[in-house]
């Protein structure tokens, strides 16, 4: 396995005036509720271990208050951890001084914000060039770069406008162009699409996936929306009360939720649209095949193709190689959420 781009090693965050002293209590097993009641400190993150692979989209999902925004702000140290390590290409960045930290933020990480956070007194072009301006790149070079990325996100011709003149979706495109212009290979996206209309949000998700095919950035994406998480994630991390409850490949989480909290989460998902053939297929057996399908097809496509017939069986083929087969009966079974033996 390659070295993770970002690795969080036993990360803790406690909010309060005397956070370091509280670590002893937390390590001693004190929970969030007790810590708040007895010591008036808030346990923001506890014992986070996450590896984020280069070129992948790692999605951190959780409800509000789960610590996901706190987590992403640790990566560029907008929030300082109480304990633990943040490894960037294997190097711990928790000890960086102010100058080194600023260089890190300028060159190695960029960020996209929920509320866009554009500078209202600057044009779209100047906004997109912000990152390079901070780095001290001359005007001509940085505006050429900004121009290129604005075009790439579909904002050709809007360079001279001000952010307030644009719709939310367009403003966030500027936000993405600003992040891309910095040429950092890590992009942090904090609920980047949560403030947008559903249709625009889908557009933006597609834009991001499209850019990602080409750019292969290491993206950390925060969201509270499971559909969005499943659509974007290569690696999904689910947070609850500041702790990781489950992480892994999204299809795996969907098929085998680790606890009732996640089961609740995945219950309302359109599984046919999210699950893919590769997650449900089995080994090749002899017998007739109704046709070949791609492992990355969604179950929905396959259902449409079979016309609802459940007695069929398809061969899964990728690049001419037979990967396995999928029985429509298994497919239908996979559509029913797993219910653990719990009593409501």
């Amino acid at each position, binding site marked *: 396995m390659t070295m993770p781009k970002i690795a969080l090693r036993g990360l803790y965050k406690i909010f309060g005036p005397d956070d370091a002293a509280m670590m002893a209590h937390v390590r001693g097993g004190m929970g969030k509720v007790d810590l708040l009641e007895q010591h008036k400190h808030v346990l923001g993150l506890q014992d986070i271990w996450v590896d984020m692979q280069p070129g992948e989209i790692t999605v951190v999902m959780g409800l509000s208050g789960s610590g996901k925004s706190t987590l992403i702000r640790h990566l560029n140290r907008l929030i300082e951890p109480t304990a633990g390590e943040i490894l960037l290409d294997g190097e711990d960045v928790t000890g960086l001084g102010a100058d080194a930290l600023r260089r890190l*933020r300028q060159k190695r*990480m960029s960020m996209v*914000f929920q509320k866009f*956070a554009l*500078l209202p*007194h600057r044009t779209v072009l100047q906004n997109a060039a*912000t*990152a390079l301006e901070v780095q001290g790149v001359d005007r001509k070079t940085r505006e050429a770069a900004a121009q290129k990325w604005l075009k790439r996100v579909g904002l050709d011709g809007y360079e001279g406008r001000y952010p307030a003149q644009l719709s939310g979706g367009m403003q966030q495109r500027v936000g993405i162009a600003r992040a891309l212009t910095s040429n950092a290979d890590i992009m942090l996206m904090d609920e980047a699409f949560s403030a947008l209309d559903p249709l625009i949000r889908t557009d933006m998700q597609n834009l991001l996936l499209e850019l990602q095919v080409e750019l292969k950035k290491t993206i950390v994406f925060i969201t509270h929306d499971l559909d969005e998480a499943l659509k974007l994630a290569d690696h999904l991390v689910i947070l609850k009360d500041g702790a990781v409850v489950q992480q892994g490949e999204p299809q795996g989480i969907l098929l085998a939720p680790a606890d009732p909290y996640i089961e609740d989460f995945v219950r309302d998902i359109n599984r046919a649209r999210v699950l893919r053939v590769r997650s449900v297929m089995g080994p090749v057996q002899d017998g007739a095949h109704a046709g070949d399908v791609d492992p990355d097809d969604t179950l929905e496509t396959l259902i449409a193709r079979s016309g609802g017939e459940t007695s069929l069986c398809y061969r899964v083929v990728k690049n001419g190689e037979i990967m396995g087969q999928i029985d429509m009966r298994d497919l239908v079974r996979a559509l029913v959420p797993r219910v653990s033996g719990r009593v409501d």
Partner: protein
Amino acid sequence: MAYEGVFDALGLREWCDAAGDNAPLSMADLLASTGAAGEGGGLPFPSLDVLHEACPQIVQTRDVTAALENGFLAMRPELKFVLDPLTQPLSWMLDSALWFFTSVPWWVLLPALIYLAWAVSRSRGVTLFVALSFAALGVIDHLEVALETLSIIFVCTSISVLLGVPIGIAMSRSKTVQRSILPVLDLLQTLPTFVYLIPLIFLFSITESKLYGIAIILYAIVPVIRLTDLGIRLVDRDVIEAADAFGMSNRQKLWKVQLPLALPNIMAGVNQTIMMSLAMVVIASLVSAPGLGVLVLRGIRNLELGVGLVAGIGIVLLAVILDRTSKAALARVDRAGKAE
């Protein structure tokens, strides 16, 4: 009489009498000797004067006032030694501004001022109004005094902005600084305007122009400080976070983000500062500030109704000119910020 028993009971009688009543007669003594006072009920409030009567060791109220005065006078040479050279440039600036405004011929100065109004406001209406006001003041032979007032305001406002904006920035950056400066600002705003003048008269010679310059600046600097502080604190947190996330240094954040976004508020503060220095320039004429205020003062002193009223209307005209021009500039900044 009422409190003599108290001192006796405390066993302090001997200590009290050791002083002997050799203080000069106070007003209370005089009244008592004429039998006019001391009849106000059996138990007067235990003020210093009443207690002094019962026990001569206790000081009288007039001694407190005298001590304050003597203390100030004792500090005066040192204060003067420090403040005189520090504030001397203010005198020079005021004197040269006055000289400049009164010696440049009107047919150069007025077009320049009208152009200035156009340059900051970019509004035809405002510029026309400025031109008409100057013409009106000129026609009634008040142009020179009005220009004197204007020159004082230019100097005092500029210095207020130059000092006030950095102080406001410092306040916005540190809670401690803010907490220590706010009471001073409150004091400066609530202190009756005449009170500014008293210690200044003792410190500086009344012929020096910095005397009124300091009084005006102290009074007028407050809003620009407050609004700079407020403006910077009101800058959207998300934008500041974005600036941090892109690795801006504090200086870059200040110049590229905080000041531009706080500019509308700062401009509102400058507008207030201009208005307040105009208000103070009239009172400052009590301590030899030239300009329209002198005429107002003459109107009061000699009961020359017409002189006072005309000068008063002149001040109103100046106020409207300055207010409209700076508000038009503010509106322009606002528009640029929001980009309609």
